[in-house]
C-alpha cells in the first residue's frame, strides 16, 4: 500500500491487534474485519483466513478509537503557504489523528457561514474529519457577537476567539448565555492583555536573565478566574484552551468540585518543555501561552493525572520559515505539533506511568468529542471504522525536514520519541503512515 495517499477501506482485515477501548482486555489480540468503511466484526484472533480482502498483520500494534485534536490552526483560507486544510489533514493523519477542530483565526476569519461551508466542502470525501470552530465575535475583534446560531447551523462545533481572550466581560457573558441555546462550548484563550503587554516568554528567572519581556502566569490565572465565575453565573459551558499555569489548574479543579460546567485542555509542549529552553533564543520555543517553569509543568501533569485537564490538544500553529527565522522577539508565536503529539504523550506520560493508553484515549478521543457534544468513535461491530493504529515500539527521530506539514516550526527536531502512528482509518478510507 502506498504511504503517501489514503485509499478506500473496502475490505480490510486488521489481524492480531490489541484494542484500547472500553470492554477490551489489553492482554488479548483481536481480528477486526472492515467492510465498506464499517467495522463488520471483531473476533478473537484465529489462524484461518478465508477473508478475501487486504490483510494487515498488526501484531504488537494497538488500535485506538480515532483521535481528535480539538485545537489546530490550518491557516486556510488566508495563509495557504503555511498550511492548507489538506496539508494539515495529512500532517494530522501522519500523527495518528482522524479528526481535528480548526480554530477560526483564518483570513477571512471563520465568523460567517461561507467560511464554514468552504472548510466542510473542501474536506468532503476525505478520510480526515474537520469540525470547525467559529469566532465568538465578528472578525475576532471582541466587539460584536458573530452570528452564532447560523454558524452552528452551518456546522460550527464551538466558539473561540483563540489567540486572545474576549476582554470585555459583558460580551463574554452574552456569548456564554447565547451559546447555551445550542449546547456548544465557548473556548477561551485565557490571557489578560494588559498584564502580558508585549511579553515574549514566561515571566520568571529565565526571562529576567535573558532580558526578554515576561508574560506572567497570573495573566492567565486572572482570566481563568473571571471565566469560571462567568460560567457559574450564566450556567454556560466554558472550555479553557491550552491551560499552562499551576494557578489555572488549581482554579479549574476547584470549579469542577463546585459543579461549574468547565473543561480544560493542555498541549504536549506544555508538559514536555520548560522556559529553560528559551535560553537558546530559538524562536521554535516561542509560543503562546509560553513555556512555563518546572512547577507549572508539574501542575499540568498533575492536572492530567487527576482529571482536572480533560483533553490533550496540539495547538498546531504553522508559521513560515521566513517568519520564524528571526530574533526571538520578532518571531511569531506558535509551533506545529500534530506529528509529534503521540510520541510526546508516550514519552512524557505513558512510559513514565502517569497515564495509561486507556487514559490517552479519554484525553485525545472520548473527552474532546464529549466536550463538543459529538459522538465519539467506538471500536465496535456496526460502527464506522474510525481508528488510530499505533506502534508502541516504533521509536523514531523527529526530523523537521521530513514532515507532512507545510511548516517546519517544531522545537522537537532531533528528539527520539518512543511511539509512532502506524495507520488511521475513517470515513471509508485507510491511510498507512510512512515508516
Amino acid at each position: 500500500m502506498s504511504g503517501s495517499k489514503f485509499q478506500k477501506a473496502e475490505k480490510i482485515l486488521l489481524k492480531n491487534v490489541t484494542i484500547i477501548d472500553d470492554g477490551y482486555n489489553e492482554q488479548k489480540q483481536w481480528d477486526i474485519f472492515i467492510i465498506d468503511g464499517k467495522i463488520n466484526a471483531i473476533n478473537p484472533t484465529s489462524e484461518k483466513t478465508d477473508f478475501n480482502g487486504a490483510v494487515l498483520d498488526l501484531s504488537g500494534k494497538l488500535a485506538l478509537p480515532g483521535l481528535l485534536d480539538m485545537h489546530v490552526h490550518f491557516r486556510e483560507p488566508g495563509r495557504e503557504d503555511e498550511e492548507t486544510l489538506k496539508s494539515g489533514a495529512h500532517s494530522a493523519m501522519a500523527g495518528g489523528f482522524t479528526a481535528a477542530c480548526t480554530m477560526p483565526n483564518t483570513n477571512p476569519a471563520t465568523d460567517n457561514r461561507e467560511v464554514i461551508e468552504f472548510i466542510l466542502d473542501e474536506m468532503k470525501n476525505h478520510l480526515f474529519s474537520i469540525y470547525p470552530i467559529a469566532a465568538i465575535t465578528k472578525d475576532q475583534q471582541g466587539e460584536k457577537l458573530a452570528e452564532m446560531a447560523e454558524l452552528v447551523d452551518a456546522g460550527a462545533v464551538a466558539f473561540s476567539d483563540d489567540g486572545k481572550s474576549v476582554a470585555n466581560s459583558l460580551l463574554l457573558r452574552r456569548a456564554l448565555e447565547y451559546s447555551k441555546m445550542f449546547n456548544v462550548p465557548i473556548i477561551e484563550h485565557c490571557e489578560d492583555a494588559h498584564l502580558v503587554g508585549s511579553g515574549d516568554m514566561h515571566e520568571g528567572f529565565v526571562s529576567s536573565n535573558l532580558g526578554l519581556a515576561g508574560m506572567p502566569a497570573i495573566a492567565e490565572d486572572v482570566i481563568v478566574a473571571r471565566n469560571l465565575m462567568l460560567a457559574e453565573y450564566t450556567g454556560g459551558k466554558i472550555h479553557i484552551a491550552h491551560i499552562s499555569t499551576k494557578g489555572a489548574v488549581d482554579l479549574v479543579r476547584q470549579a469542577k468540585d463546585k459543579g461549574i460546567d468547565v473543561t480544560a485542555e493542555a498541549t504536549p509542549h506544555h508538559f514536555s518543555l520548560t522556559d529553560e529552553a528559551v535560553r537558546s533564543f530559538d524562536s521554535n520555543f516561542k509560543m503562546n501561552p509560553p513555556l512555563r517553569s518546572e512547577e507549572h509543568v508539574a501542575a499540568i501533569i498533575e492536572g492530567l493525572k487527576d482529571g482536572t485537564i480533560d483533553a490533550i490538544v496540539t495547538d498546531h500553529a504553522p508559521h513560515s520559515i521566513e517568519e520564524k527565522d528571526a530574533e526571538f522577539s520578532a518571531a511569531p508565536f506558535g509551533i506545529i505539533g500534530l506529528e509529534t503529539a503521540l510520541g510526546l504523550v508516550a514519552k512524557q506520560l505513558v512510559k513514565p506511568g502517569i497515564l495509561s493508553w486507556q487514559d490517552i484515549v479519554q484525553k485525545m478521543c472520548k473527552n474532546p468529542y464529549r466536550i463538543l457534544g459529538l459522538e465519539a468513535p467506538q471500536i465496535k461491530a456496526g460502527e464506522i471504522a474510525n481508528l488510530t493504529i499505533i506502534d508502541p515500539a516504533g521509536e523514531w527521530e523527529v526530523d523537521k525536514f521530513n514532515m507532512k506539514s507545510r511548516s517546519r516550526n517544531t522545537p522537537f527536531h532531533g528528539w527520539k520519541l518512543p511511539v509512532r502512528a502506524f495507520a488511521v482509518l475513517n470515513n471509508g478510507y485507510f491511510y498507512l503512515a510512512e515508516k
Partner: protein
Amino acid sequence: MSFKRKHLLGLEDVSAEEITHILNTAETFKEVLARPIPKVPTLRGKTIVNLFYEASTRTRFSFELAEKRLSADTLNFSTSTSSVKKGESLRDTAQNIEAMKVDMVVIRHSAPGAPHYLTQCIKGSVINAGDGCHEHPTQALLDMLTIRDKYKYLKGLRVAIIGDILHSRVARSNIYGLTTMGAEVALCAPQTMIPYEAEKWNVRIFNDVDEAIAFADIVMALRIQMERQTQNFFPTLREYHNYFGITKERLDRANKKITIMHPGPINRGIELDSDLADDDRYSVILNQVTNGVAIRMAVLYLLGGELQE
C-alpha cells in the same frame, strides 16, 4: 591562558579566569594607547562590521576607535530598528555580511538574543555591543577594569547598581561579571524596575537608596529612560529623583568613601547629580570611557586570536 571563545555574546557563562585574562590583556592595550602613535598592526587585513541597529554614539565610537588602533578595516552600518520591518532586516543584512566575507561583527540591537541569532547566520565572530535588555558584556568588562584600576582587586568589593535594573543590559552583564569575580552586588530601584526573582542572582535588593549607599563601596548609577514614566514604572521624574536619585546630600549623610560610576549618557539631576558626576573625588566616569577602548581592543584581539602569526 589561551582564549578559546569565538564570540562574546554575554558574561553569564564567562569564567573568572577568562574575565581576568580579558582585563589583563586590556591593561597591555592601555600601554599601547599611551604611546605617541597608539596603533598596532594586530588585525591588519581583517574586516570588522559595526552593525548598529540602535543609536549609540559612545559604544560605536569606542569600538571604531579600538578597531582602528588594531589596524582593522571597518564598515559601519547603522539604522534604527523601528525604521525597518522587524526581523527582516537582520537576516538580510547577515546574508550580505556573509557574502562580503567579514571576519567579525559588532552588533547592537534592540532584540535580546539578536547576536546569538546572528551567530547562526554568519561564519565570523560576533561581539554583542548590547542586545535589548539582555547583555552588554564589554560595558561590564570596562566597568570591572575601572574598578580594578582603583581598588586593585574585585573580590569582596560591594557594588550597588541603582536605577532601572529591569531594562538594563549593563546591569545584567555587571551582575554576572561582578558576582563571578567575587564581588558582592546589590540592586536598588523602585520595585517595578526589579526583575522577577532577581534575588536568585545572589544579590541583595534594596528599595531604599540610603540603604544601598550604606552597603556599597561603589555605586553604579543607571540611566533612567524618560518614557518609563509614561509607562507607570514610577509616577514622575520628580518623585524618582527625590527617592532614588544619587545626591551629594545622601553621600554626605552616609559619611563614607564611595566611588560613583555611570555607563552614560547621564540624565544630570535625575539619577545622578551633576556635581557628583564631575567630582573626581567620587566619579570615575571618564576613566570608564578611556577603559572602554582598551577593553574593546582586548576583546577584538582575543576573539581574532587565531588570526595572528
